[in-house]
Every structure is written in structure tokens, then in C-alpha cells.
């Protein structure tokens, strides 16, 4: 990590001539204006705006008529919201665990000096080029009980075969998972493969000299060394999970059983635009942002706060 730290702090202008603080690095500051504007105006500004209006009774148009915590009280008394959170947590954990382990295992397999690596990689990665709407549509079609896998197996003679995850409230999240993993694991595999390729050959040599079995080297040495890759992966995968919306709309519209695959983003959208209750939608989105913060702040502290001391 030593050189990273140096890279982070040590590359500033090396000019000896003293200058006023704010003019130092002036081109860099000018060049960073779009980023600063985006961060402050859109992300911070937009968030504050949302939080502020979550304390109002805004309906179709935003208006400042304060109602205190009413929207939040109502939000947490809604069965649909509670189920949405439960679903997202379940889907999120499953999705994270599966994308990361599948991605890693596939990357390890791909890293065995195999032939046709390019072909395999292209095949695993292409779904990432397709939108969730498309992904949802295709898998809905494949999982269609009448025409899809279930129908085909039954036609082959196994008439009692049952595979209809999307129409069963107990299994619908697995159905979504099948499609979600299809779309996303290839990309994670590429990230992991990149991480594996970045590890020094000497480490492998040393491990072999010491007689450590390959699997143990992976678990004990390689994975800890790939921490940055895992973090990048986590950020990308987790941000996708929290935004989960298109896939659900395309595959199940939140059903079956009414709520079996509801997710928070859907609640937000429905209440903002269908129910024309902006206040309620903003309260729900504030809760979503809050949960993101709870996860991200410790991470940001470790990533940026920690380095200053290292």
C-alpha cells in the first residue's frame, strides 16, 4: 500500500515559488469544476432537496407545507414497504454472495492458462451489454411455464416436472436472481480475473516452495491481496442492487401474490408518480439513501480516513 499512499499525497505541484493557496493547482481546480458541480449541486443538492421535501405533504408538485414526520410514520406502517425492504435484503445478500463467489470461481477457472479464453470471456460478458428490460423479457420467456423450460421438459415425457419460479411467491426472488446473475456475473468475473492477473508471480512461486496447496493459497493469500478488487466489485454490484427496478418491472411487476417481489425503488416510483404523493415517495427515498450512507460511511472512512495515517 505504501506507493498508493504516496501516489495519493505526493504528486502535487513541486514548484518552489510560493503562491496564494487557492491559485495553487489552478488548472486542476478548473478542470475539476464539473465534478465539484455534479457532486455538490446534483448529488448533495438533490439529496438535500429530497430530504427537505420528505417533511412536507407535497402531492403532485413539490410545495413546502410541513407535516413533520408524518410521511415516515405512514411509510413504516405500510406492509408493502416492509416487504420491499425484506425482499431487497434477501435479494441483495443472495445476489452479492452469488455474483462475488461465482465471479471469483469463474475467474480462477479462467486463470488456469486455458485455451479459447477470449471466447469463454466474450460469452460470459455479452449479457452485460443488454439492458435489464431485455434481460427480464428473455428470462420471463424462458421461465414461462407454458412455453419455457417447464413446458419443454413436460413435452419430453416428464409430465409432473414443475419449474415455475416466477408464479410462486416463495420462489420468485430466485427467478429474479437467475436473470440478475446472468446479466451481471460476467462483468464481475472480468474484474476478478483482472485482480488475479495483477498478483505477482513470485507469490505463487513462494507458495509452491512452501508446499501450500493451491486452494489454500487462494483463500489465505490471494483473496486478502485482492481487497481493492473486491471493494470495487462491491461498490458496483451493491449500487446496482439498491437501484433494482427495471428487472422487477420487466419480469414480475412486483408480483406474484401482489408483493412477493416488491422492491423499495418500485415503492418510491409508484408513490411519487402513480399515487402522486411526492412527500411519501421522498420519505421512502430518504430511507433508501440513509441505508446507503450507513453502509458507505464506514467504508469511506476506512478507504480515505485510514490512509492518512498509513
Amino acid at each position, binding site marked *: 500500500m505504501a*506507493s*498508493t499512499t504516496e*501516489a*495519493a*499525497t505526493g504528486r502535487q*505541484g513541486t514548484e518552489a515559488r510560493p503562491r496564494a493557496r487557492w491559485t495553487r*493547482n489552478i*488548472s*486542476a481546480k478548473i478542470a*475539476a469544476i*464539473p*465534478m465539484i458541480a455534479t457532486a455538490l*449541486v*446534483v448529488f448533495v443538492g*438533490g439529496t438535500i432537496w429530497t430530504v427537505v421535501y420528505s417533511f412536507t405533504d407535497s402531492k403532485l408538485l413539490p410545495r413546502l407545507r410541513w407535516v413533520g414526520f408524518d410521511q415516515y410514520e405512514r411509510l413504516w406502517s405500510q406492509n408493502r414497504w416492509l416487504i420491499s425492504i425484506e425482499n431487497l435484503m434477501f435479494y441483495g445478500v443472495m445476489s452479492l454472495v452469488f455474483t462475488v463467489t461465482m465471479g471469483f470461481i469463474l475467474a480462477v*477457472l*479462467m*486463470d*488456469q*492458462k*486455458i485455451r479459447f*479464453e*477470449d471466447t469463454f*470471456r466474450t460469452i*460470459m*460478458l*455479452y449479457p*452485460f*451489454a443488454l*439492458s435489464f*428490460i*431485455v434481460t427480464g*423479457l*428473455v428470462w420471463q*420467456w*424462458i421461465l414461462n411455464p407454458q*412455453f419455457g423450460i417447464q*413446458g419443454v421438459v413436460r413435452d419430453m415425457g416428464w409430465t409432473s416436472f414443475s419449474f415455475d419460479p416466477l408464479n410462486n411467491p416463495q420462489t420468485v426472488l430466485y427467478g429474479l436472481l437467475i436473470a440478475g446473475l446472468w446479466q451481471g456475473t460476467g462483468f464481475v468475473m*472480468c474484474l476478478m480475473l*483482472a485482480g488475479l*492477473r*495483477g*498478483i*505477482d508471480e513470485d507469490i505463487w512461486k513462494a507458495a509452491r516452495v512452501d508446499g501450500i496447496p*493451491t486452494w489454500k493459497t487462494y483463500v489465505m493469500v490471494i483473496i486478502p*491481496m485482492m481487497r*481493492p478488487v473486491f471493494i*470495487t466489485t462491491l*461498490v458496483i454490484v451493491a*449500487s446496482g442492487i*439498491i*437501484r433494482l427496478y427495471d428487472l422487477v418491472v420487466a419480469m414480475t411487476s412486483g408480483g406474484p401474490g401482489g408483493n412477493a417481489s416488491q422492491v423499495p425503488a418500485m415503492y*418510491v416510483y409508484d408513490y*411519487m408518480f402513480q399515487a402522486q404523493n*411526492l412527500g411519501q*415517495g*421522498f420519505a421512502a427515498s430518504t430511507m*433508501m439513501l440513509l441505508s446507503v450512507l450507513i453502509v*458507505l460511511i464506514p467504508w469511506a472512512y476506512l478507504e*480515505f480516513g485510514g490512509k492518512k495515517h498509513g
Partner: protein
Amino acid sequence: MADLSMSSAMTGPRGARPKRALSPRNIMLYGILIVVCLYYLLPLWVMVMTSLKGMPEVRMGNIFAPPVEITFQPWVKAWAEACTGLNCDGLSRGFWNSVIITVPSVILSIAIASVNGYALINWKFKGSDIFFTILIFGSFIPYQIMLYPIVILLREMGLYGSLWGLVLVHSVFGMPILTLLFRNYFSSIPEELFKAARVDGAGFWGIYFRIMLPMSLPIFVVALILQVTGIWNDFLFGVVYTKPAYYPMTVQLNNIVNSVQGVKEYNVNMAATLLTGLVPLVVYFVSGKLFVRGIAAGAVKG
């Protein structure tokens, strides 16, 4: 961890060396990979096959079976005949709009993000990391939440409904992940190069154009792929922030897929889906190798 230099990112695979061509280990290895590939290929196979069948065959048959009678009618219908309200000219209507939206959005977002990444690594200033953290936080905000604030912002800037408003929105929402990738990539470029250029008197832009840019082809390819895919596939922004004159192809796709008339025309849906996905898919297939290289350097540093 040792600094990840460009060369080490691009060397070949590691791990134990394979011994014989047909060892049990290899059979298992390739076996697993082939099974996994079947999972990935299945939907593409189904899409292509379904799109080449007529509706009666789709309804009768097995979705995995190849068509008995190949028909290109669904493709023709999806491209040129499917209706969006009164306009029955299929996806062709939105194709050029999508190009017009995607090209400037991709260029602008990559330009901004690459400069951001460069400034964040080589020209740190007070608070730059804080802005970066906020940016990463921003990547978690669901788009739907930001719809209203952005409507207001664009209205105040006088850009609402114009092409440039949409380009701006795409640049803003592409910024977090792209900046992260560029920042990580630039941190892997040897520092000595930067220092040497400084000694030679090169400034901010000089170093960016003469040293950073030429060395960063792979990460630009990654950014290009991510943005082309993301912007081309976008529906919500395209329809909320522009006029119908600029509606992208995905609007027609949405109309074809969502307006069910009697039985869903799965074959037309699949053809439309494939047609819409064609541009990102081609970009992938053409630049696959560079993509992995870029990802290699862009993701490894945290």
C-alpha cells in the same frame, strides 16, 4: 501491495500450469466452463430462434428448438412496421436519435471523467477526496429519485427538452463509476513519468494530453463500452428530458414490448430486443480484449 504497473497487468494467466491436455483436471475445468457458457448462451439462442419463427410456431413449439420454417418477418416488423401510437415505422425511427444522443454523451462524459480521475490522482487539492466520496455515494442513488430535482435544475438552466440537457444528464450519471475507474487506472501509471514531465515544465493539460492520454487506451475502451451500453439502453432519461423529436430507440422498444395486442408477439419482441441491443453488442465483440485489459488496471487499485 506492490504497485501494479502496466506490464504486470497485461501478462498472461497465472496459477498452476496445466500438465497434460486430457488430464481429469482439464476435463473438469473445461466441463464446468462449457456448462457455464451454456447458461450464458441459452437466452441468446432462445432470442434468435424465437425471432426467426412465426407466431403460430412460437405458440405451438418448444422455445429451444430451431425454427422449422425460418421467417424474417418479425425482424422486418420490429425494424420498420411496429407501431408507436400512430407512427408505424418501428425501431428505425429512433435509431439515428439514439446515435445523436449517444455520441456526444459518451464523448463528454468520458472527457470529464478522465480529467477528474487525472486531477484526483496527480493534482490533489484540498477536499478533492471529499468530492470523490460524494460522487461514489451518488452512484447509489436510484435514478427515479433524482427525476424531479433534475427537471427543476434543467429548467433553471434553460436546457430542459434540449439535446444538450440530456447529454448533461448522461454525463452526470456516468461520472461516478467512470471517475472511479479512471482514478484507479491513472494511479497505476508510473509516477516517475509524471515527475519527469513536471521537471520539463509541462503543465496540467500538457501532461494530460502528452502522457496520460496516450498511455490509457485500455481504460478509455472500458469507459467507452460502459457508456455506450448504458446510454444506448437508457429509456427513462431519454423520454423524460427530451422532446419526441429526439426519442431514442428504446422508446420504440418499450412501446413494442409493452403494448400488448392480444397475445404477446414474442417473436417481434425478441427481434426488436436484438436489434436494439445490436450496437452495444457489436462494441463488446469488437473491443472485448481491450476491455479486460482496461478493467484489469482500472479496478485493481482501490
